[in-house]
């Protein structure tokens, strides 16, 4: 209470109650992931028999070896990597380029096309799923990389965000480059891109996260074993488990399932821990669509 009287510029130090509340939440937020990671190294039978105990001496990689044998997770990683590479590159290059046109040029139809960007932003993904799937069928693209990569390859949100970022680049900088004889694309590549690098980093992280975690479109458009992305591979694993609820079998499947989930979790967790600031910037900007 004394603290409320002093004219401190900052607010008072939080009390025990706040810490307790935050600690409890922290535990709840980390528990599922931590539990899954730890449990995946337990013998399968133990995961089922005593889900709450962890015995270091019983450490085993059995779930992982079994999982890598039973589940085409390697193929899933390869497919996700291919999509990440091409779709990610397309978004990272073409979206800022389009954004540059919106931010720094006057041209006929600009407002109309920008309206299209906004509509794409607001349109729920699900509206387009059925007709897009039919379009893929017509093109013969079902279960191909094109189907996974091309729709949404120039992300509308990325344009929207990068337009704001590029608007902040001073016009004088661009004009100076023009005076020096720079072509328009060279201005983009040599002047704009280096200046907006922090924004691009946030966009990159957000793009990787979105593509890596994408599920609805991949499961509809490319669910064959050969083309399944990592998330699609994981999702069929879960159906095995719910269909397989009998004794020892359940334990084996559970062990493999936790191993597979852990393998899928770790790359993003590592990336997140390494690039926290960019992640938070990306997520934050990603939310401000409206």
């Amino acid at each position, binding site marked *: 209470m004394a603290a*409320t009287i002093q004219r401190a510029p*900052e*607010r008072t*130090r*939080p009390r025990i109650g706040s810490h307790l*509340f*935050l600690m409890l*939440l*922290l535990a709840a*937020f*980390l528990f*599922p*992931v931590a*539990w899954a990671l730890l449990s995946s190294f337990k013998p399968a039978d133990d*995961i089922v028999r005593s*889900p709450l105990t962890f015995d270091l001496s019983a450490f085993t990689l059995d779930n992982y070896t079994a999982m890598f044998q039973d589940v085409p997770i390697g193929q899933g990683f390869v497919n996700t990597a291919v999509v990440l590479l091409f779709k990610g590159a*397309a978004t990272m290059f*073409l979206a800022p*380029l389009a954004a540059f*046109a*919106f931010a720094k040029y006057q041209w006929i139809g600009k407002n109309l*096309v920008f309206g*299209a*960007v906004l509509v794409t932003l607001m349109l*729920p993904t*699900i509206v*387009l*799923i*059925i*007709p897009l799937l*039919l*379009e893929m069928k017509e093109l013969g693209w079902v279960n191909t990389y094109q189907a996974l990569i*091309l729709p*949404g390859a*120039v992300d*509308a949100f990325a344009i929207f965000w990068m337009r704001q970022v590029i608007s902040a680049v001073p016009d004088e900088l661009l004009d100076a480059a023009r005076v020096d004889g720079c*072509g*328009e694309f060279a201005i983009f590549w040599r002047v704009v891109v280096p200046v907006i690098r922090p924004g691009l980093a946030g966009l990159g992280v957000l793009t990787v996260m979105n593509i890596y*975690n994408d*599920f609805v479109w991949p*499961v*509809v458009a490319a669910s064959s074993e050969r083309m399944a992305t990592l*998330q699609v591979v*994981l999702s069929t*694993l879960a*159906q095995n*488990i*719910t269909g397989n609820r009998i004794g020892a079998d359940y334990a084996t499947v559970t062990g493999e399932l936790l191993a*597979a989930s852990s393998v*899928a*979790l770790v790359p*993003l*967790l590592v990336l*997140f821990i390494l690039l926290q600031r960019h*992640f*938070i910037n990306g*997520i*934050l900007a990603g*939310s401000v669509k*409206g």
Partner: protein
Amino acid sequence: MTALAAPPATRRAPRAGRGPRMRRRLAPYVFVLPFVAVFAAFSVYPLFFTARLSFTDWRGTGAATWVGWDNYTYLLTNPAFWSSLGNSAVLWLLIVPVQMVLGVLVAVLLDNAKLRLRGLYRVAFIVPFVTPLVAVAQIWVVLFDQRYGAVNAFLGLFGLPETGWLTTSAWAKPTLALLFLWKTTGFIVIILLSGLQSINASIYEAADLDGASKGRQLWSITVPLLRRTIGFAVVLQTLAVFQMFAEPFVVTQGGPYNSTTTAGYYLYNHITRADLGTGAANSFLLVVLVMALSLLFVRLLRAKD
């Protein structure tokens, strides 16, 4: 064309026009071309296609029959359609109010620069948002298993009976709601934190001098000033909840007894049944609903200003 016909004396002018200045005028069209192409091919075309499809009966092969408004009336008079919306509405009630209260509390605590371990909390709360939903949904299936799950094992320590979290219609929705809350609350905290940063700290100093309690300040200063940000978060989450698909797909397959057949999952059922006309109509009904809800929230927020 005129440049070509121009007399040699003015040669330099048209060259300049065709050169940098012309290029400057043409450049933006070239720059947006890839977006426009992708947008036309994979957004505009499918959108018109859905519109037409929604008035036909089509099973994916053969010719489509024009059925007028039949798909719409079929859906609007179908209890299964309404119950999918009902399920989503219940999930919304279980998720959004809880998430906003929790989000504001956590954001206010984390906004305090004197908080110890602030960085750790911030990072930890976002971990769920970063993790792949499908992987987490899997973990949920294991954790909440009635016989072998860690949750029932933990509750058993306190003598509580085994609960069929995913196998009874009473608990399946709350369990899915918990997954959604776990996954996205950190995201909402980040949004609210960014909103809090725009509130001037001197307001709180004045309130302190007036002797207002912390709880009172939260309710009378923070919440009203955060109203726009909260409203924005509510709209975002409303869109997400009504489109929820991966969670029921992986965890419950819409069951038990369709209790977790959300609006998004019901839509997917039309695809698996190859009932594409009805599916298209369902998409449009859902979009209209989602847009109407978003507009309603935006209107409500404006009205209070």
